[in-house]
């Protein structure tokens, strides 16, 4: 039996406000609240809410046969809570059907898996906590920001306790292999890899309303017939896309929601089922290994990570940011920790790309870089204020440990003192 596995990504960075170098040390608030609110409201109204309504209807009409998954960055959840709480409610409702799964990823939609392993671990923990507190389910399947993956990153994720990871269909990794199977890590046989079907996913996400496309108009009937006509031994077709494709990239008048509604009908008629990623991993055996020595992602023509770290601007920004990772994690200042997360979103670096600054709201990559670096300069000064950079990390750690030990010692002695005093009292 063939299966379809739908998964939708939801992420929006905190957009940064115009921050001049005169503002450094003067202004510690970095975000453009107006723009963020407007963007989240727009996405909620045009995409998230109508799409959620559609999915709920599909699940109910198919008696729970239709199933799908979502991934959220912690940052977008924060913004939804603030600007569009009804979206959270509507996801809760979806979650209650039991036909929806939420996945683990980094809190900040960051590149920490490549640049800072400790940060990576912390962010995943933060994100999964957040998901659990909102929807009551702990994620078991991992999908990294931008589907960034390499053998090494896979190992890190495995060590964090995950056994299923989502990756993209990248020709130099798959070679002649089909994405419609389950694969495994080259050295960790228990680590299963699910592969996105790139063509069919993009057909929905980007081509659906494109009149110059040879397959326009795409109907559910046609779409399912493509899957039906695939060789019978291919067990799963993974259709993964950004959630805003529904309603925003593909407008409601293009018929995208009707298309979705019709999918389960034609699928079930042709004996094609629906699975959530965790179910895919459970039910389908891995057929072969997939090895990716270099990081891959789901963006760009090369499908590597050069859209985020390919040029000098991006490299300098990333280096300066992650150089203080260890130091920031020693800090306890909450606003500082929060800004640290917000500044890590991969989007900020994508805006600095000369090749493809997808989603940018800056005039040029240079403009994006200038603004980001001014903010980062202020941020770094704040970090420095907490713990001067003249002390190196190890020394600082040692000092912090000593302080901690001393505090414990004082506490112990105080307790002892209390005990002795009370004994003295009773003796008296």
């Amino acid at each position, binding site marked *: 039996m063939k299966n379809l596995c739908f998964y939708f990504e939801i992420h929006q960075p905190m957009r940064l406000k115009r921050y*001049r*170098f*005169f503002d450094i040390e003067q202004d510690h608030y970095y975000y453009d609240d107006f723009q963020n609110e407007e963007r989240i409201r727009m996405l909620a109204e045009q995409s998230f809410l109508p799409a959620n309504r559609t999915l709920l209807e599909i699940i109910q009409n198919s008696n729970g046969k239709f199933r799908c998954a979502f991934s959220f960055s912690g940052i977008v959840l924060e913004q939804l809570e603030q600007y569009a709480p009804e979206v959270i409610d509507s996801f809760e409702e979806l979650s209650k059907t039991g036909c929806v799964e939420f996945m683990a990823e980094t809190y900040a939609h960051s590149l920490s898996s490549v640049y800072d392993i400790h940060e990576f671990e912390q962010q995943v923990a933060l994100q999964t906590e957040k998901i659990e507190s909102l929807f009551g389910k702990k994620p078991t399947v991992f999908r990294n920001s931008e589907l960034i993956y390499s053998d090494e990153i896979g190992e890190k994720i495995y060590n964090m306790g995950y056994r299923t990871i989502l990756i993209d269909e990248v020709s130099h990794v798959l070679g002649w292999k089909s994405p419609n199977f389950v694969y495994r890590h080259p050295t960790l046989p228990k680590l299963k890899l699910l592969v996105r079907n790139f063509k069919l996913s993009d057909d929905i996400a980007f081509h659906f309303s494109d009149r110059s496309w040879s397959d326009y108009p795409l109907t559910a009937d046609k779409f399912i017939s493509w899957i039906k006509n695939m060789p019978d031994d291919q067990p799963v077709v993974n259709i993964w896309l950004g959630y805003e494709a529904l309603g925003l990239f593909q407008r409601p008048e293009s018929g995208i929601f009707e298309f979705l509604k019709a999918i389960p009908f034609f699928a079930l008629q042709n004996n094609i089922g629906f699975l959530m990623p965790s179910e895919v991993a459970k039910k389908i055996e891995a057929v072969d290994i997939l090895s990716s020595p270099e990081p891959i992602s789901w963006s760009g023509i090369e499908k590597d990570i050069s859209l985020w770290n390919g040029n*000098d*601007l991006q*490299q300098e920004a990333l280096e300066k940011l992650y150089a203080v990772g260890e130091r920031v994690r020693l800090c306890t200042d909450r606003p500082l920790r929060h800004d640290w997360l917000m500044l890590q979103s991969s989007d900020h670096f994508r805006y600095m790309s000369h090749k493809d600054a997808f989603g940018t709201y800056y005039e040029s990559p240079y403009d994006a*870089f*200038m603004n980001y670096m*001014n903010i980062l300069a202020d941020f770094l000064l704040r970090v420095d204020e907490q713990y001067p950079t003249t002390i190196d990390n190890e020394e600082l750690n040692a000092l912090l440990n000593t302080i901690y030990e001393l505090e414990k010692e004082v506490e112990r002695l105080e307790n002892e003192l209390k005990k002795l005093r009370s004994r003295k009292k009773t003796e008296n």
Partner: protein
Amino acid sequence: MKVLMFGWEFPPHILGGLGTASYGLVKAMAHQPDMEITFVIPKLYGDEDQSFLKIIGACYVPVVWKENDWNYVNERIGWIMNPDEYFWLRNGIKYDFRRIYTNDLGCIEFSGRYPDNLLEEISNYEAVASVLAHQLSFDVIHSHDWLTYPAGIFAKQISGKPLVVHVHATEFDRSRGNVNPIVYDIEKRGMDAANHIITVSNLTRNIVIEKYFQDPKKVTTVHNAVEPLPDVDSYVKTPRSDKIVTFLGRITMQKGPEYFVEAANRVLKKNKKVRFVMAGNGDMMQDMINLAAKRGITDRFHFTGFLKGRQVYQMLADSDVYIMPSVSEPFGISPLEAMQVGTPTIISKQSGCSEILTHSIKIDYWDIDGMADAVNAIIRNPAMYKSLHELGREEVNNIRWEDAGKKVIKIYNSLLGK
């Protein structure tokens, strides 16, 4: 195809961007197959490079019939022009121009500059055009900038050949709104009479369409390019402890020098390790010295006066940032020259070159905060400097006159129905 082209300046005797731009374009066009260009300028010095085209000096074209014998003419102008040509051109005198002051050969003495009696020179140039139009054979007439429009129009009226006018600047750019009605009139007549109008940027194209009421269909943008610098490697950046930020050009209203001073003031409030240089000359120089003094930054703000030749490129190469804050710049070649020697540039969005440059920082000319911020970003972040330095140079090396020349020839062909 034969082209009769009217210009005002030709290297090495150039005063502004017009000479550089028309030279680059003509040179590239002359190297295309089946192109024969006759370039007319008011004053011929004799040291111009005529290897790829014929140059006629209007100051050696007789407009009033004077009886002279061959030997006398040879003695007078034989060093620069064949006397036979003089006599042949003399046959083209069909009108009575005796109202114009001429010399013993019946020729007009042109200054070839921008003198106070510029309007008189422009109309005298028209007289020369009539003689040439009667004697020369050509398929297209091409006039560079308003000074030569009347000459082009007259040549068109006489020969019936199509006229192309090339707008390198408009009165709206030069005057920042205070348009001289006489100049506007000359420009408008030229455009009205033209079969096709070439503008150096879309910015200028819009002005031509909106302010001169031209049909958009007959206005085409052909962006300028820049000649490759043969001795580019000889300009080396001198190591200094302070960063150098430069303004280079005429210090006039059009170039927005006051925004440069204000931006300098902003930067210097935060960072004392920068020096600002204002290179060039112009009627606002005194005001700028006063303004810098008023802001109290003269210890870090320097004036060099007029630079030329190698000095220009050396100044650019020594700079860490080049800024062109022009209020209205039809094209603006200097940022491209700065990029050739690898200097990062900040240019105003109100400039034509910003339409074709990617690796340059673009700001509104009035946005002094943005300008100061960009200066700071370039001098503080090595990646920013490096990107603009390397990618900017690469970009500018791919902007070639050859492509511009081909576009112009395409316009000729469409006018001739080819």
